[in-house]
């Protein structure tokens, strides 16, 4: 602490350490991506560069099906989570009612308990009702763990909200519905967006819950890979995984930028 910390510079030791950690974090991702361009069918050594697998993956119907399942489940569960989650956050912000505290703490249950417990609870629940696992059970399960994150994110946004801004809209002649559309919604939109992105990431990332609540027809890509690892994974899986990695990152980067813009304006 010789000088003021304000003037911050990289120290060589720190740079080295940070690079090492980043390498650790990115190495497996690079490996997955690299082998999607490998001519060899085995993911062992890199023998030559090819785009072949990006064409071949479309022929693998089961693989494509699992990919679409992943995307559909993520998309639908995110939309549902955002709608109910945002409504819930608004209700918690606007109204006082008896079980408010109970509700807000039970929102933390899916966040806190290990997903495994929650997954087998849903498995027991669906099975005992004689519901066989399908896309619907998968989507329901995903909404259950991602919706609380939407509520919490939107609620955090609302907490920093001056109530008189809504009153100002009423005062200037807007009725309740117009106030919501012209003032409340635009103001919470960065929170809704980031809550939605969180829900999307959680759904795309999920393995444990899907493992128990997906049926044979609704396998997701990660589950497919899990099933293949032992026997050896073919490079078309790498190709599809690469697409998924790149796709996720592009979507999230874009939304982060949009969110940043929205917030900067306010």
């Amino acid at each position, binding site marked *: 602490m010789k000088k003021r910390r304000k003037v911050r510079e990289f120290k060589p030791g720190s740079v080295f350490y940070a690079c090492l950690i980043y390498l650790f974090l990115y190495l497996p991702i690079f490996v997955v991506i690299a082998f999607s361009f490998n001519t060899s069918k085995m993911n062992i050594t890199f023998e030559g560069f090819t785009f072949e697998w990006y064409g071949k993956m479309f022929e693998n119907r089961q693989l494509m099906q699992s990919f679409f399942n992943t995307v559909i489940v993520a998309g639908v569960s995110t939309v549902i989570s955002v709608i109910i989650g945002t409504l819930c956050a608004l*209700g918690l912000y606007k109204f006082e009612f008896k079980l408010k505290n109970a509700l807000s703490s039970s929102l933390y249950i899916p*966040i806190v308990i290990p997903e495994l417990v929650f997954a*087998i*609870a849903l498995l027991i629940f669906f099975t005992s009702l004689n519901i066989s696992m399908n896309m619907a059970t998968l989507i329901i399960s995903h909404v259950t763990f991602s919706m609380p994150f939407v509520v919490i994110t939107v609620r955090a946004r609302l907490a920093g909200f001056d109530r008189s801004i809504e009153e100002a809209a009423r005062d200037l002649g807007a009725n309740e519905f117009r106030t919501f559309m012209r003032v409340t919604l635009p103001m919470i939109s960065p929170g809704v967006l980031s809550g939605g992105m969180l829900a999307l990431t959680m759904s795309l990332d999920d393995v444990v819950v899907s493992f128990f609540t997906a049926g044979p027809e609704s396998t997701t890509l990660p589950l497919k890979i*899990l099933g293949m*690892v032992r026997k050896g994974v073919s490079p078309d899986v790498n190709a599809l995984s690469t697409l998924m990695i790149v796709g996720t990152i592009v979507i999230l980067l874009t939304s982060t930028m949009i969110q940043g813009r929205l917030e900067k304006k306010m």
Partner: protein
Amino acid sequence: MIKSFRKRLGILGTVGPTVLWLAAFLMIPLIYVIGISFLTKNVYGGVDFTFTLSNYASLFQSEYAKVFLDSLWLSLETTVICLLVGYPFAYIIANAPKKWKPFLVLLLMLPFWTNSLIRTYGWNTLLRTEGIINHFLQWVGLTDHPLEMLYTDGAVLLGMVYALLPFTVLPIHTSIEKLDPSLLEAAGDLGAGRVHVFTRVILPLTMPGIFAGSIQTFIPSLGFFFISDMMGGAKTMYIGNLIKNQFLSARNWPLGAVLSIVLIVITLILMRLYTKVGSLEDMA
């Protein structure tokens, strides 16, 4: 009267769907778990509605006790390594030049956004006996025969640390960010050396982040069965795999339910300890 009716309608319309959803797909399923833990498994892999405590009694069998101890030990190792590796890393990011900081945080978030199973699969590829790392080691001449790396306990630990490191780093990073630099200057001004500034000011003030990070690492690590499946080849049995097996291969649902309840209890105890030092809001 009309006002209170409208208010009720408003409450139902906003929080109603969430309440119903959580009741139907969270609370009731959890109650089912508790219920089933007292029932008897039947020969067909289902359950008979006969009350029993024997599922709980079987927890005290030494084989299960070993699974629990192994799992808790693995989670503890994971958490400690994540803290030791993650704290300096979080500190470096938090103190990086302002221009770089958002980029460095983003770089930390990116892998977190991509599917953890795909990333674990990447490690699986790397560590194989005939995999890249072994090739590299042999090429450099560090070893003349391939090392057994995959399907070892070490590989499981690596996979766990890898999957959970961002969960440890982010809360710590947040708490270091909140640190007021003038406090460090004050400590220096009052005669504390670099070590003491760290142990007497920085460390205590970032404790909430350390606790939140530890909890967020420890609890999920108990249930990550797919990592031990992919990296450990199911050589050592962990609680996650044990529970999974009760529902898939062994078909002993009551035992699986009991094991899950044990996980919930462990979680509750940890959360109880945690809420004494931090708040739930820091977790999300």
